[in-house]
């Protein structure tokens, strides 16, 4: 089976920025693994995940996702996109639509174009969406409008939308940043559990090393756009994590760079 993610010597700078956000990254993720990205603010976690989702153009290097290589010049084929699911750091929900509508939006790429346009899901689409809602513990919110929800509830909707998509690779950008510690553990159990149950690969970024340790088999530390460590969870030392955040401590403000 092809690796879930294969990155060779990847570099990228955001348009209009002279500092690279990612610098000479290489990474191999076998299918089914759950992997955590740790790193200080501005390290490049969101950038890396967005790139794997096929949303960034103009990078250098070679990258393939679920066996198909990404093209730095054009977005991935639409047919491939449902296989990669994304949980956005800022949720990216349609505020004025209901929770159920938002979760069904995750199914749009799997519906026929006509059904997608009409917004008429098949019974299978509906069951999948309702199951995702139930898994995320928000079945009772189905008919609520998103603009009436709390931050934690929105986060669950964002995760439910991703699960309803039935992706083979789940990319989650700080999926538990808005939750209290107990809820955070619950959601990560859910996310990594759902991934394992369907043999999907899960890659999530986090600012909480203890949660990364608990829920990932492997931890990648990023700082200043570079990978500073890439180890099985059991090998991760307290010292390595501490260094990851210490490196940038003396440089507050925009454009944080590691001093390594």
């Amino acid at each position, binding site marked *: 089976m092809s690796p879930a993610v294969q990155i060779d010597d990847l570099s990228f700078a955001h348009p209009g920025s002279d500092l690279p956000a990612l610098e000479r990254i290489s990474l191999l993720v076998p299918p089914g693994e759950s992997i955590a990205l740790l790193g200080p603010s501005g390290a490049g976690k969101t950038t890396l995940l967005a790139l794997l*989702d*096929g*949303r960034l153009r103009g990078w250098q290097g070679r990258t393939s996702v679920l066996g198909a290589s990404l093209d730095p010049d054009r*977005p991935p084929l*639409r*047919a*491939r*996109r*449902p296989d*990669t*699911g*994304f949980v*956005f750091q*800022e*949720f*990216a*929900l*349609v*505020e*004025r*639509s209901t929770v159920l*509508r938002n979760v069904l*939006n*995750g*199914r*749009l*790429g*799997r519906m026929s*174009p006509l059904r*997608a*346009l009409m*917004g008429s899901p098949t019974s299978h689409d509906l069951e999948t969406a309702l199951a995702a809602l139930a898994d995320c513990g928000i079945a009772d919110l189905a008919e609520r409008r998103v603009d009436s929800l709390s931050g934690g509830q929105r986060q669950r909707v964002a995760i439910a*939308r991703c699960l309803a*998509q039935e992706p083979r690779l789940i990319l989650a950008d700080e999926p538990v940043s808005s939750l209290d510690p107990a809820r955070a553990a619950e959601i990560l159990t859910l996310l990594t559990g759902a991934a394992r149950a369907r043999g999907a690969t899960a890659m999530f970024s986090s600012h909480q090393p203890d949660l990364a340790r608990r829920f990932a088999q492997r931890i990648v530390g990023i700082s200043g756009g570079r990978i500073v460590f890439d180890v099985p969870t059991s090998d991760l030392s307290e010292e390595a994590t501490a260094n990851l955040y210490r490196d940038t401590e003396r440089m507050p403000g925009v454009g944080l760079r590691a001093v390594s």
Partner: protein
Amino acid sequence: MRFRGFGGFAASTLVAGAILWSFMTTDVEFSRLLSAGPRIAEFLGRMFPPDPTVMREIMKGGAETLRIAILGSLGAVVLSAPLGILASETMVSPPLYRTVRTLLAFIRAIPLILVAMLMVGAVGLGPLPGIIAVAFHATGMLAKFYAEAIDGVSRAPIAALESAGAGPLARLRHAIWPQMAPVIARDTIFRFELNLRESLILGIVGAGGIGFYIQTYVRSFQYDKAASVTLAVIVMVVAIEAINVALRRRFA
């Protein structure tokens, strides 16, 4: 400071020159200007008391004005939907939306009454030229509003749907439209109110509606009847304004 002083001097000279020029080049003679006051007073006197027997004409003309406004607005909505998309930065390429926006600016620049006169020339008297004129004129503003509604939409959910594999139409329907709909509703009602108000006078150039009766009665020296119709128009404008204020409160 010196520049500002010079600018101020140039501006006042220009304004004074323009006023003098206007007096010189029209037939505004001082004697006529003096007699205008009494003549207007006399004219107003002949409007009193307003003749209440024209109620039937007022109802008929008012209903026709309402129909012109409704159908004209409908036409504007139908035209503005595609033109709004074509004028939106987020839906089409810069050369296209710039061209369409320029076109809309030109449309807005042509006064409604002028469009109505041209349409009367093209399709004859009656409400039809009024409807066409309102639809055309209102599109200049409404399509621009629609484009702004599209561009004011938050991008993140659109990107999320694209990431999930939704096509452009599905994104329009499920990420853009829900954000846009309330803005579109508000703008459309606002434009309808303007259309209603502006179509009250279309009849003066023969494009149908209540204005037709004002023109007819003035031309035939029935000033008391003209007065009744004018009062009816004022009542309608105030009523529209009141409804508008209520609606604005609803959308605030």
